[in-house]
């Protein structure tokens, strides 16, 4: 009986934990995006999130439109972690015009030369934890 209950509860608990750290990471991603709101950018309510091991990378896909400017902002809830974010076009060429990295926060500015698909590459460079939760938001104007 206990085994059966655990088999139901454990995945639910793991899922809840995963959501919790993505949610925490999301608040840091929003913190990274805050300065751009003052510059007239609108931050999207939708976001990407997940968790990665040290030196692992993940790509997320974004449809960007020529004529807009975009700031992509990454955050993690893990103190002393170092995360980076860079934007590439559909040919795999670096597309950002500016980027920064400050510990658990990172950002990259893209002014698309063409309308199309772009990829944000997220990397956990350093982390005191085995898995590091991350979230990315973007802002446009």
């Amino acid at each position, binding site marked *: 009986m206990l085994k059966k209950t655990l088999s139901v509860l454990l995945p639910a608990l793991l899922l809840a934990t995963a959501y919790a750290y993505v949610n925490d990471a999301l608040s840091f991603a929003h913190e990274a995006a805050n300065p751009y709101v003052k510059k007239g950018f*609108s*931050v*999207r*309510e*939708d*976001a*990407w999130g997940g968790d990665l091991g040290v030196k692992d*990378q*993940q*790509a*997320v*896909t*974004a*449809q960007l*439109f*020529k*004529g*807009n400017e975009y700031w992509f902002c990454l955050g993690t809830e893990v103190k002393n972690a*170092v995360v*980076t*974010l*860079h934007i*590439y*076009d*559909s*040919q*795999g*060429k*670096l597309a*950002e015009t500016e*980027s*920064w*990295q*400050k510990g658990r926060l*990172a950002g*990259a500015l893209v002014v698309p*030369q*063409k*309308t*199309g*698909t772009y*990829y944000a*590459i997220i990397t956990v*460079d350093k982390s005191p934890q085995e898995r590091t939760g991350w979230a990315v938001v*973007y802002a*446009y*104007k």
Partner: protein
Amino acid sequence: MTKNIPLILAAICLGAFHSESALSAPESIDLSKFPAAEVDNVVVPVPSEVFSVLDKLGTPNWRAELRSSLGKNSGNRAQVALLLGTVIAEGFIAVEAEDSEKVKDIGKEVLVLAEAINVRKAVIARSKSITEKAEAKNWRSVRTEFDGALQDVRAAMEELGDDELAQLVSIGGWLRGTQVLTSIVSKNYSADGAELLYQPQLLDYFTKRLDGLKNTRLGKDELVVKIRKTLAGIRPLIGKDDGAKIPAENVDRINKMTSEVIAAITSKEA
């Protein structure tokens, strides 16, 4: 010496920037090394991302793009989800038109449709906020609220296990946004305006989602079948490469296709 101060300061600033700048990024990467499942995770743009470019390209008559009727609820859950998506997209158009009365009507309609698919609770606060911010003519905040309403509805539906229906909300919004985009570009064609239609990954993403519906009843729904055909029809018209010129006739054809499917979504016979 004082002459050198600006140079020294600039050097210090540059040094400070570098210490905080991003760890060096390779000039190019091999995207094929990333698993398909990872790059498949697409955030669907909201209509205002496209509309903001149209505003920079010209002076669209947003009021003329607004629909007089927001459509009818047939009671069919797939239709209601699609309709809700189109109504939220209409909210973004009303914001561009700076029509506070229309925005308030749309905010109320979002609530009515959300109730029909059991997610009313998730959007009560958003609906109230849309009304307040429309009265204050705080358009940027109204845009954020419509974006938030879209995410809240989808999240609430996913929580109820209606993930597949939640996808239809996004697709409905995208179809209405594309109908308006093509309507504006058709009236005053420009290559830059037409280029906004180049959204291959997004079209493939929607197609994949609709092709992979596990709920067979939903997969066979007349509207879903029609949308699948529409997406397949649009795909070859948007060009093959980034920056490829999309001719005026393709814009017109996409407008016709999206107008037909929007008419089907908003009619009570759905």
